[in-house]
């Protein structure tokens, strides 16, 4: 920039200004495109009426009636859904991280028969969406009596999370120097001790990412709960909200909007707060896996 200013100060300054205007205009347009739908949903949730028709983005007499309904109306299951989702999310997050940690440790630090084929199998399996096997999952859960139960849902989530996350964590374990566990072994530490006291603490960042992903997944996923869960008191938030609009789309939309604002805000807050870790976690998973 500085060399140009020396040559032609006036026109360069003007060009600079024009460019800045162009850049900020584009950014401004993007802001509108990004924020408009979100603010629109927020505005709608404040409408007193229930119908999408006639609801406006900036309601004249705004009210919190939908939020109140969700929390206090006896016909509302919202709090139960919230509790279900938290139960599922916490269990899945904890168990999946633990199992993934064990599996990744084995694949990273031991050379055993079937290791290589196992790695290939993981690579392949993580490409298949769980959705492809939905008929079988449905029938399987039905035969073992776990249909319409949160336990069934939890088991499927954990199983489905293993291949991809195990790769993520294995990649991270691979970067930790082997000398650490070898010196511990010489000092007489057993297998589990090396794992729990040396490797796990060092792998905390990636384990946190895995735990967070698995915690978030039940909040966002509606299709697996839709296949597994039947009765409204077992719904998770995503499924409950989905059914709310699915039943009579235009007639409960404002209520749906209120319900989704209540989950979008905390999730978005977590994501924005931890964005760096989440993105780097995803990135390392793809480049190392």
């Amino acid at each position, binding site marked *: 920039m500085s060399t140009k200013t020396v040559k032609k100060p006036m026109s360069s300054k003007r060009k600079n200004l024009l460019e800045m205007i162009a850049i900020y205009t584009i950014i401004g347009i993007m802001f509108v495109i990004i924020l408009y*739908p979100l603010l629109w949903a927020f505005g709608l949730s404040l409408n007193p009426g229930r119908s999408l028709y006639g609801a406006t983005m900036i309601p004249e007499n705004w009210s919190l009636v939908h939020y109140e309904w969700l929390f206090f109306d006896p016909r509302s299951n919202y709090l139960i859904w919230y509790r279900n989702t938290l139960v599922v999310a916490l269990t899945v997050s904890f168990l999946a991280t633990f199992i993934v940690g064990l599996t990744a440790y*084995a694949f990273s630090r031991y050379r055993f028969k079937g290791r290589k084929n196992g790695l290939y199998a993981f690579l392949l399996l993580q490409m298949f969406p769980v959705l*492809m096997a939905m008929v079988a999952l449905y029938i*399987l859960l039905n035969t073992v009596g776990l249909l319409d139960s949160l336990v069934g849902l939890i088991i499927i989530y954990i199983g489905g999370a293993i291949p991809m996350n195990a790769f993520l964590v294995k990649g991270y374990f691979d970067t930790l120097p082997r000398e650490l566990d070898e010196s511990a072994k010489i000092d007489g530490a057993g297998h589990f001790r090396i794992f729990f006291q040396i490797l796990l603490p060092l792998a905390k960042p990636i384990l946190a990412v895995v735990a967070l992903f698995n915690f978030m997944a039940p909040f966002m996923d509606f299709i697996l709960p839709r296949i597994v869960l039947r009765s409204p008191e077992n719904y998770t938030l995503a499924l409950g909200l989905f059914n709310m609009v699915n039943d009579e789309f235009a007639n409960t939309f404002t209520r749906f909007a209120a319900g*989704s604002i209540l989950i979008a805000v905390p999730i978005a807050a977590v994501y924005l707060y931890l964005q760096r870790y989440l993105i780097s976690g995803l990135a390392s998973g793809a480049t190392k896996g």
Partner: protein
Amino acid sequence: MAMKNSQDSQDSQEILVNPKHNPTVAALLSIIPGLGQVYNKRYIKGAALFILFAAFVIAMIDFISTGLQGLVTLGEVPREDDSRVFLSNGILSLIFTVFFLAFYILNIQDALKDAKRIQLGWKVPNIREGFRNAWDTAFPYVLIGPGLFLLMFVVVFPLLFMVFLAFTNYNLYNAPPRHILEWVGFENFTNLFTINEWRNTFINVLSWTLIWTFVATTLQIALAMFLAILVNDPRVKFKRLIRTVFILPWAVPGFVTIIIFSAMFNDNFGAINLQLIEPLFNMRIPWLQDATWTRIALIMIQVWLGFPFVYALFTGVLQGISSDWYEAADIDGANRWQKFRNITFPHLMFATAPLLIMQYSFNFNNFNIIYLFNQGGPAVRGQTAGGSDILISWIYGLTFENQQFNMAAAISIILGLLVATFAFFQFRRSRSFKEEGTF
């Protein structure tokens, strides 16, 4: 002696301390698990193996043999035998059998290996040492045990089940338990390609899936790249704020935003038509009634949803490019386009290529947006898929709405083959594959 030949030449040079101890005998004795180990004088190990195998056989033989039988017949008495149960028991039996065979072979190999070592003068370890060694070798399996178990039942078993379904005649009119399923070979696949209705639908859906994957993902990446470079300009202020807003679409749960968009694009009272299109062009666009418009809307929404993640990645890479590159380019008198083409673009691509490829494969199976926006619709006359259905959402529709389980499974297999081929080529090129190869 087959294993003698298979051994390396270095072994034959070593002196046989116990030439009378015959590895072949050990291996042959192991046909009854444990006997080979006893021959090797590892009595406890032998006994443990024998008991384990005997227990497994006694406990499972009934289940496995009826299971495998059921897999062939799929039941005999309509209304009483449920073919689906037969099928799933059969698959479970198959899995158990594979495990059993694997352990069986390991048992023989183990006896053989020990026998050879004894031949070379190896002393059988005492009980404590033996336990320690066993624990050391078994430890990785203990670690992957729980994960493997879950994976088997939640991922592998259902996938196998689906594969088997593709070769049956399970559909709405021939559903268990009222009817007995039958094996039909490749009939479902040939139907898919020979019956006009199926073939046309398949070709339509597949071509839209490919277009969708390519266009939506590429636009997503292009927009992200454009914005990342724009905001990375040193003159731009409030970078943190801009970054936060740009990442918002990624942070808000996708199903919420897609439903919001689906309301905004509503033909009659959606905000897009009422507040944008009508005032400007004095018309309404049939976003949800017309397949082409639905597709356009879907692509726009996916770009909105998908660009933030790529944007965040690119921003990270851009901040890491050393300014030396650009200074050198300035000295050479390069213009902006040249700098972009020769410095920025290669840097971005090199650092993020695998992730970008993942974006393509994600969109290929992006069920949520297709289903939530318009449930794959609008309906198309004479075919089972809607105008905006991609393969995975078509499979969903066939399964849960039309109950054409056999066809859904057949299409799933084709989808799986596509994904697997893609994955194979992708992973062959990826770094970890090469690194793994060196072990």
